[in-house]
């Protein structure tokens, strides 16, 4: 690995339907929170990384212009990173490489989304080109349902078991969200509620899907030298991985999903992780859909292919299980897309810094954060540890 880089603080908005603030105010809320939390003066920041979803979703293009003041970025160096749904983790990667290159000691990473002022599903339909795919890829659920079906079929997973496992994940995460002060959806649901919820796109039902959230997240990355100077505790970056594949949905195998497998492999190699289920203490997997979360467990090597539903039902990935996944309630309960990957990163940082409050996994030392995007196409991973 290159120069050591650590996260010294995180700031999140209270995510949800935030009609009480306008978009720049939402961004400012996260940014001012991280400055207050770390005691860093905005003037000391060397560079700012900003990112979000496409302009159609924002209602405004090249949002770094609009948010220059809210991000306290006037007069600062700037990079604007966007990789669709994986944007949040890509922002974290950009901030990491910036500090690791030796070109900055303090970088502010900001991700944001105000989805209740836009139309997320219409926007996501336009990610597909207008000639072949757009006619039948309607928003996100269509794509991810097809992926779930491909995976279920490949491993012959019985429908009852699959629905039980998906419902188990939904119940667990919705319960966890009550322990996360920033989470959006806070409702108690039962297994039966999930299994009988309104169908969205088979097999995905309403409680298998994330909400549309307004939210922003700000994270400060710092060099080893700066962390020592400030005398701060840090969540150290141990590994970064990213992989992307074909644009045409039908061109690639989405069950044994190479983009996810390769991204995890790169990050594990850097972090020296051989057995992720054993070595990781907590994972913040990007899980807008319950079914897809199980597929990620397999692609990330948390278990063998086709095995995830059994382990989910055994509680392996629950709050008290062998590898707790999404103790924050995850994307399933909170999804301001451009911020979501950075929220996963922030949550992983809080866990290894021991600052996750009511959803702290006791003694967590090594955490994985993840985001996914494109036409089911991109995966990004960042691994954080309590030790340099």
């Amino acid at each position, binding site marked *: *690995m*290159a*120069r050591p880089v650590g996260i010294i603080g995180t700031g999140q908005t209270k995510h949800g339907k935030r009609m009480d603030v306008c978009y720049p105010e939402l961004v400012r809320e996260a940014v001012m929170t991280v400055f207050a939390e770390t005691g860093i003066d905005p003037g000391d920041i060397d560079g*700012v990384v900003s*990112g979000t*979803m*496409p*302009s*159609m979703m924002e*209602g*405004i*293009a*090249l949002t*770094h*212009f*609009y*948010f*220059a*003041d809210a991000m306290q*970025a*006037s*007069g*600062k*160096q*700037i*990079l*604007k*990173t*966007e*990789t*669709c749904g994986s944007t949040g983790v*890509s922002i974290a990667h*950009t901030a990491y*490489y*910036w500090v*690791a*290159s*030796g*070109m900055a000691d303090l970088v502010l990473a900001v991700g944001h989304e105000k989805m209740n002022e836009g139309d997320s599903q219409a*926007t*996501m339909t*336009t*990610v*597909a*080109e*207008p000639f072949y795919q757009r006619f039948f890829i309607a928003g996100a659920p269509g794509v991810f349902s097809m992926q779930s079906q491909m995976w279920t079929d490949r491993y012959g997973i019985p429908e009852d078991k699959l629905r039980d496992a998906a419902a188990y994940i939904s119940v667990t995460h919705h319960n966890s969200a009550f322990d996360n002060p920033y989470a959006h959806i806070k409702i108690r649901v039962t297994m039966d509620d999930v299994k009988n919820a309104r169908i969205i796109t088979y097999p995905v039902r309403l409680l298998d899907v994330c909400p549309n959230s307004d939210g922003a997240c700000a994270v400060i990355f710092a060099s080893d030298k700066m962390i020592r100077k400030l005398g701060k505790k840090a969540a150290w970056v141990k590994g*970064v*991985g*990213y*992989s*992307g*594949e*074909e*644009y045409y949905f039908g061109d690639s195998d989405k069950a044994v999903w*190479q983009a996810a497998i390769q991204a995890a492999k*790169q990050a594990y190699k850097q972090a020296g992780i051989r057995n992720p289920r054993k070595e990781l203490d907590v994972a913040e997997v990007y899980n807008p859909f319950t079914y897809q979360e199980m597929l990620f467990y397999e692609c990330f090597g948390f278990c063998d292919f086709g095995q995830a539903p059994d382990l989910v039902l055994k509680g392996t990935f629950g709050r008290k299980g062998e590898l707790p996944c999404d103790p924050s309630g995850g994307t399933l309960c909170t999804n301001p897309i451009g911020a979501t990957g950075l929220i996963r990163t922030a949550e992983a940082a809080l866990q290894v810094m021991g600052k996750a409050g009511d959803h702290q996994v006791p003694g967590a030392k090594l955490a994985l954060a993840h985001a996914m*995007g494109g*036409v089911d*196409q*991109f995966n990004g991973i960042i691994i954080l540890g309590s030790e340099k």
Partner: protein
Amino acid sequence: MANKVAIVGVAQNAGCESKDNYYDQAYQVTRELLDKTGLKKDDIGTFISASSDIFHGGISCANAYYWETTGAFLKNGSRQDGESLFALFYGAMRIMSGHYDTALVIALCKGSENPSNESCTLMYADPFYQRGVGLNETLAAALQMKLYMKKSRITAEQCAKVAVKNLGNALGNPYAHRKGRYSVEDVLKSELVADPLTELQVAPKSEGIVAMLLASEEKAKKITKKPVWIKGFGSSLDSYILGDRDLLNGQLRNAANRAYKMARITDPGKQIDLAEISEPYAFQELLWMEDLGLCSPGGGGKMIDSGKTEKNGALPINPSGGVLANNPYVSRGLQRAVEAVLQMRGEAGERQVEKRVKTALAHGTHGFAGQCHAVAVLGR
């Protein structure tokens, strides 16, 4: 600079409307770059692209569309939005971090499939105050030009001379979109676009896929005998609301000073041999020259009158024809760097300047009246 990064190969396509589709164009430029550097797709460490959804033919998440066409299949990569010099910086940072020894940087914009720049840049305006009055980049530039002419006593003729020079230079550039021999009178009498800007002082809307390969010092020596080194880079972002800003004292000085500090440039007017400046509006070449320290503050008008910035002058500015000749919006910053590289390598063909270029500057800008600037200093 801790770890040196070199530019070891460049490729670009022509700015005029092409019958080839986006996929083919992106593939052709990537293929050309790989062939020129003798590398295979799998030899490349990481891929950084630049594109913007608002300039992407009605398809959102631009990077999703061209990912595998540009060789990035199952590779670690990322995308920068708005300004392609950002992608150059990010690619360089990835190499400087020690994670990679090569990075393919590519900027993509198929202008012919997008609405006008005015329509696209109107979407930079906030939907509550500025969009309603129709503020876009051209209108913001017209306001800036009026202020510049008044406060710095720059004449309409001096602004027009930039267009005369650059469109003339473009005659030697096979990639340029708009070119020709025009007189100052032709420029001033061309159609009024936004007072005082006339049509020939406003950049066209072009296509542009521009690629470059970056390599670590060790790797660069294996790939080419003529590496061009990235000596320094810097950017700066200004406040958002146009009325809050001093349009003649923007952030370019700040961006340039960051790049100069890194490149150990103390007297840019003397140490820089050639500059490729993004001037989507003719007068901006003069204003940006002042901010870059290539002439004295307020001295932009005298500079163009002196002929120093001509192709074979003492300090050639935009021998390629600049953005006035070719404006693939997102790609234009990286294209400035590509042109600077070609000049330093002596591979600029008919647009090659006579003087020997050891140190060159590439500049990119986007946003109302230059809300954001990026500067790279390159050297042999």
